């Protein structure tokens, strides 16, 4: 299930991209399983098909999805191989977002790290 909030500042394609990435990371979408067509998802989420296409294109470029001509779009069979640099950048970016939230909420570093550890093991467990 992907939820989008059109009035969110994050562009809709980015919300979809993140939603799919989450589903793959959590193992809800398994490698080689098919994902909804652009048209299906556009109707389901009631957004412009071009928006879905953009999210799918980005996910395909990232190696999370793959398009098989005539068959549809699938979750990749092999996990995406990012360059170390790219991987590092993304981790840092996500981490600073999380840190900002934690600080805003007045959480100490130790509390934030505990929380992160717990979330990590929960998702990791499910996706095994």
């Amino acid at each position, binding site marked *: 299930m992907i939820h989008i909030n059109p009035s969110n500042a*994050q562009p809709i394609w980015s919300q979809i991209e993140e939603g799919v990435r989450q589903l793959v990371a959590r193992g809800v979408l398994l490698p080689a399983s098919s994902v909804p067509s652009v048209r299906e998802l*556009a109707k389901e989420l*009631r*957004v*412009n*098909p071009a928006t879905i296409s953009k999210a799918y294109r980005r996910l395909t470029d990232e190696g999370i999805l793959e398009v098989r001509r005539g068959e549809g779009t699938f979750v990749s069979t092999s996990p995406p191989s990012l360059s170390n640099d790219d991987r590092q950048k993304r981790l840092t970016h996500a981490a600073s977002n999380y840190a900002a939230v934690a600080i805003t909420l007045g959480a100490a570093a130790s509390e934030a790290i505990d929380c992160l550890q717990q979330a990590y093991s929960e998702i990791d467990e499910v996706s095994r």
Partner: protein
Amino acid sequence: MTGTNQPIAACAKGVSVHYGATLVLDALDLQVPTGGVYGLLGRNGTGKSTLVRCLLGQERPSRGHLELLGLDSWRHRPALMRRVGVVPETPQVPPRANADELLAMGSRLYPIWDVDEAKRRLRRFSVPSDVSFGRLSKGQQKQVELALALAQRPELLVLDDPSLGLDSVARKVLYEELLEHLAESGVTVFLTSHDLDAVERLVETVAILHRGKLLVEEPLEDLKRRFRRISLREGEALDSAIPAVLQRTSPWGREAVVAHNLQSIPESFSHEGHAMSLEEIFEALVGTETAGGES
């Protein structure tokens, strides 16, 4: 149009419309890129309908000119109407005719006319084809009008406030039908609407009409990146270098809405202040006072 690389489906250049002493459109420029959904927003009485009529060549502006698909709207109206599908704000369909009869009429009027697809469309939404148009529900009437507009396989589809007066289910069905069509065709859609949630989901380019001019005309994504709401501390003044759209006192204290240029959005911008929905940006730009007449 010259000077742009992107193909243009519709444009207005320096368009002014006077009704007596009232200036409805004021040297307005507009550009609808080909192959996307373009949403025109504006409060009632801001001249949206006038602009749509001018675009469709139904009304001649006092000054300036308009083009659809590269042709002058006014001079080439008959030829253009074979390539442009229109769902007007108020139906212009003979109310006694039923959907079957309307579809038969269309096949005599238009060189391309996909009756089968139109019938499939109406069946999908259980619109009876043997009941006269005037006796259908408002939602069904819009479905028929959309089916008629799409039957000619238009290059440009103009929808003038299509969800006006529809309940939420009828609205959902109408947009689903539109999305279905968007998924399979490269049609350009020009949409005016008060339904900001739908606009936010559908459009790629958004324009806001106010006092006869477009206040903004840009990709929705860019618009939302440029705007933030910032809370000001007691006695704090907004840096005069920051372009503020408005400052006001809310129940939480003073706040400002700021809009940067896309090229000069500061690094820190995404962290400070609150991102705004299209509705909030719209209200900040056009104001919320309830004065103003109907057009």
